[in-house]
């Protein structure tokens, strides 16, 4: 290989890497980040997007370059070079994906840990009220026992019981015995949800929180999160649950502490008198 081609190859690899990193940092494919999970998630997404862009545009570049550079010209006869293998080269491109995969794996483990995925379920707020045997049965979604940046104690988290059915979510607040079709949560407070389905499998998904957990009949699941931005976000059922699956939506209202308290007081009174 001559010096100029080597320089050209190295130059294009560097350009490719810079392009990939730029794409990862600047092209935003995600909605607003409105929970502690979401910021961590977006960090992982940017890294994966950069790596993916470098690999994708690199491979496309190689294929297109080969097709143009090594195409058979009119009237040309004969075969290409009889190269059957090249051990150093093959070791190189076994090593590249291995290293990328190891990096991605370790990095996503770190992200997973920061989301609280590795925490034991015992830290969940519900367990104060549960019997031991039911603790054994509960399965955690990601963010179970999630630790937010301000390091609040999980005992402060607000417990909410979620019931999913064809085709609605129902939210029950044990404190104040509120039953609501809309999820109201205060900003910057950890929430701990215990979810169970009455009929088929549903899934609780808030894209802006970057969390999803199936809601399963006969098998309670736990999902914890801490919203960080006030606003209204959609709650979407993400598991095919019947004809009206597409219409099974609700809203989560993230509001500041005062508004939440006002909502809570107003509704818990109603709830108390009616019951």
């Amino acid at each position: 290989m001559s010096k100029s081609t080597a320089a050209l190859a190295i130059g294009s690899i560097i350009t490719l890497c810079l392009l990939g990193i730029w794409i990862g940092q600047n092209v935003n494919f995600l909605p607003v980040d409105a929970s502690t999970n979401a910021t961590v998630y977006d960090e992982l997404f940017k890294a994966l997007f950069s790596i993916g862009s470098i690999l994708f545009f690199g491979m496309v570049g190689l294929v297109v370059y080969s097709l143009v550079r090594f195409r058979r010209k009119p009237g040309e006869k004969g075969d290409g070079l009889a190269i059957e293998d090249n051990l150093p080269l093959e070791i190189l491109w076994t090593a590249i994906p291995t290293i990328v995969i190891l990096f991605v794996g370790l990095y996503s483990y770190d992200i997973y840990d920061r989301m609280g995925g590795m925490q034991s379920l015992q830290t969940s707020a519900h367990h104060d009220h549960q019997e031991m045997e039911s603790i054994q049965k509960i399965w955690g979604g990601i963010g179970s026992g999630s630790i937010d940046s301000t390091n609040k104690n999980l005992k402060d988290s607000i417990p909410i019981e979620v019931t999913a059915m064809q085709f609605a979510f129902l939210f029950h607040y044990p404190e104040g015995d509120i039953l609501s079709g809309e999820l109201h949560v205060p900003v910057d407070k950890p929430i701990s949800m215990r979810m169970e389905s009455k009929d088929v499998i549903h899934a609780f998904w808030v894209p802006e929180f970057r969390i999803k957990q199936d809601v399963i009949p006969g098998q309670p699941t736990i999902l914890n999160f801490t919203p960080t931005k006030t606003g209204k976000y959609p709650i979407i059922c993400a598991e095919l649950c019947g004809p009206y699956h597409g219409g099974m939506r609700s809203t989560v209202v993230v509001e500041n502490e005062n508004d939440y308290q006002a909502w809570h007081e107003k509704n818990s009174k109603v709830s108390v008198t009616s019951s």
Partner: protein
Amino acid sequence: MTISIPPSSSDQSKKLQPEGWLRYFSFSLDHKVIGIQYLVCGFIFYLIGGALASAIRIELVSPISDFMPRDVYNQVLTLHGTIMIFLWIVPVVNGAFGNYLIPFYVGARDMAFPRLNAVAFWMIPPAGLLLISSYFINGAAQSGWTAYPPLSITTPAAGQLIWILSVLLLGGSSIFGGINFIATILKLRRPGLRLMQLPMYCWAILGTSILVVLSTPVLAGTLVLLSFDIVAHTGFFNPTLGGNVVVYQHLFWFYSHPAVYIMVLPAFGLVSEILPVHSRKPLFGYTTMVYSIMAIVVLGFLVWAHHMFTSGTPPWMRLFFTIATSFIAVPTGIKFFNWVATLWGGKISINSAVLFSCGFIVNFVLGGITGVALAQVPFDVHAHDTYFVVAHFHYIVYGGSVFVIFSSIYHWYPKFTGRMLNDSIGKLHFALTFIGFNLCFAPQHWLGLNGMPRRVAEYDPQFIFFNQISSVGALIMAISTLPFLWNVINSAFTGPLAGDNPWSALTPEWLTSSPPPIENWEGEAPLVSKPYGYGENPEKPNLTSNILSDQSNSDSEEDEVKK
């Protein structure tokens, strides 16, 4: 020890088989006829599945459910998935090309078990008709191709039961085919032909058949239990009777993740046959290709629970399956680098077969990258069950497998029919398919990340624009079928004669007439010890020298075997 099969002791069997066009509608035992039967039958189901896909895209032009009733929409998406997987891609990449090519590649006159082979094919049309007819009985299954309970237990039973019966038949056909391929590749090789001299497609089919034989019975057992839950009100998966719905998911994905490799490994093999011929270069890194196929087979069994990251799985299980799934990218990556290295320095004829194969590389790389991303638990909890996943797996099964099927049809059509396809129309077909496909599925990545779940008939109005682009892409894909159909039908009658070996290829199927005679060769099967020996004789790029030298090699090897 392999036994050489003497030619034409078979006047009797020739007379038993119908001849002419009628044999394609008969219980023919000829592997080439069965291969074409698989291919044409699969393509008819592809057109049906494609029509269903078009119905889905029409429904999604507007954000409200207005084109068809909601339960019909769920039936349509269930049928679309089931037909495309079990009646189009799996039978075609395995059954069609496997039956046609494998006996040539191992130097045999037919498959190991010709009757079993014919039975395996003839299970498919009734199973397919049964599946489609369920729509007219009491509504087809409407719980998706995954048929998760309790939804599959609570939706109308007739459609779901017919769906189970049909998938059981198709699974049985697949198992029969797998057993036949394993026996043929391992036991029917021409004397002197060693395993490491086989064309790569043999390795792909061997690996795939191992997956089929080991994993399909698990699906069959699972579906039988599911049918008990529906008919006999047992409680295997029914939570109201103490059953566990997540167990079903484990069992289902134990088959259905390997099923992805059952759809793509043969495609990898086919591309490995096509690229060397048209770039006039040996397949790069044969040995690493073989090992990477087998690595994918082994790892393919250890990744199923990555479909269940949001189902409620313990943390250790999520980590294990993340790591196992990610590592499949390593052997897969090797193959892609090897294909690019095969192109590199070649003299590539830019024809429809090469374009579809290169289109496959580009699409599959994107599908593979999104696949590695989805394998990461923290990434998956957001993207799972959204249109991002829909985009990902269509890049794998359409951008991957279906592009390879088209590439293979352009490559082997001269062998099948003895006539050439029109390459200009082929390039038009490629351009329309590639543009339509990417227009249809690329925007779905964004849709999924921004909050559109899969399998919905209605969606948030903010997603109208990208859904309409996607539907335009689907329309272009539908249109792209027309020039292809015209090309294959018209060329069968009026295409220029191809001759025995229009591509000057070295693999054994080209070393006989086009179309090949019954029992494949007039005389002794040639021994091709270097199926990719391009460029070894740059003065005269023709085959005779290569093959003759192999013949002399073979004698000495046979002697070795005898000793």
